[in-house]
């Protein structure tokens, strides 16, 4: 995956557009332009203002076209891994039916979702194929059809799936996938439901 990413970057440089030849603007100027333009949101400022800031991981990823050098990759993985919280009882598997609903729902945190009327969704189908019966799926992420079956429903794979959804950058720095747990988009219970969707034998993902 990483090799592909690197060769894509190399290709992008070879076919560099005129825009790329220009000098990069001062990051403070970029941040200022964001703050000066994004001011209207139907919730109190403390809800949306922090969204305008890019954290260290986002900055490192943006600065390198999502392919930072090895040392930065390692630093991101370590930092993001550190933000993962685990269920106290060591139980990672919730209810796949609820997981399917969360995977379908794109609700939450958009300007039209205030005041909130239900739980946030993960919108997994926006980027992934999951259950065979849902044909309206996106392709930014890999197909997850048969995810658990392919991994023989192994216990360590259950934990890997939990960590992936909780914080995608821990295993794949600069992933395009949101950090659902660390960014507090989804609750721990919702993530467990998604792990059930991915990893349980009776889930439609594995039929």
């Amino acid at each position: 995956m990483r090799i592909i990413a690197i060769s894509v970057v190399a290709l992008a440089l070879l076919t560099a557009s005129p825009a790329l030849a220009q000098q990069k603007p001062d990051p403070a100027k970029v941040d200022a332009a964001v703050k000066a333009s994004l001011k209207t949101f139907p919730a109190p400022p403390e809800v949306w203002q922090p969204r305008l800031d890019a954290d260290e991981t986002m900055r490192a990823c943006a600065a390198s076209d999502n392919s930072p050098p090895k040392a930065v990759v390692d630093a991101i993985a370590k930092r993001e891994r550190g933000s993962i919280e685990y269920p106290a009882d060591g139980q990672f598997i919730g209810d796949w039916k609820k997981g399917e609903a969360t995977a379908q729902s794109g609700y939450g945190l958009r300007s039209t979702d205030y005041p909130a009327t239900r739980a946030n969704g993960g919108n997994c189908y926006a980027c992934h194929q999951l259950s065979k019966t849902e044909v309206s799926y996106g392709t930014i992420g890999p197909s997850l059809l048969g995810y658990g079956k392919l991994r023989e429903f192994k216990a360590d794979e259950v934990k890997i799936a939990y960590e992936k959804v909780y914080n995608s950058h821990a295993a794949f720095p600069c992933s395009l996938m949101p950090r659902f747990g660390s960014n507090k988009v989804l609750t721990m219970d919702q993530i467990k439901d998604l792990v059930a969707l991915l990893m349980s034998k009776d889930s439609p993902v594995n039929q």
Partner: protein
Amino acid sequence: MTFGFRPLLVACAIFALGSSALAQDSDAATEKAIEKYRQMLKEDPWSNPGLLDADRGEGLWTSARGPKKVSLEQCDLGKGPGNVEGAFAELPRYFADADRVMDVETRILWCMEKLQGFDRAELIKRPHPGGGQPVKELGAIATYVASKSSGMKYSAKFDQPKEKESVALGEALFVRRSGPFDFACTTCHAAPNTRIRLQGLAHLSNPEGARKVIGEWPAYRVSSTHVMTMQHRLADCFWQMRLPEPELGSDLTVALISYLTSQAKGGDISAPGLKR
């Protein structure tokens, strides 16, 4: 521009579409409807409902309006006051009178404020139409102006220092990640042949990909049955990014449009286009 009997045909087209695109929120149905539409457009280019808005925009451009009761015919879009033909093809550009770079909508906003005396704050409060509502006046004027470059190629030079700065800022904004989903424009627009659910994503970091689509804006959007401008399109993407709505005419929106337009340089303009 006059339509003669055309509006009738357009009305039929909207009706044929409405049953599938409006009633149910089904991507497949919408795809089918747009295919039918594209076919119709090929047979009769005048059947694009967006042309009604271009027509409305022309009327707005030439009528005396606003507190100062003047038309926009003294508005300089870069080719001298009142020259609309081909002006859009060279936008965004630097305007000395405003001392900043402007895209078509930002420039029209400026003219509506400075020449006609409209209240800028009022114009940018709710600048974009809701689903099913017609494009607002500013957007209709932009549609008219863009249509007057239809058939031409994007040729903005971006050779002035402030123009170069705007493109570079736009590129930095295009890759900048922020918000609870960690999204940047590149999350969705930096690879070929990807889609969100069933909606195909334009490959905008690639000049060829940009040239294919940017020249179709403003566009009549079949799924929301109205003309959507580029500023509106960006606002919709910010909505998906869980970020606040970008202010129409802000440096951020102008920079992103400068970047996209520089990517699309040399591409054909066919505005108003037609979109899913």
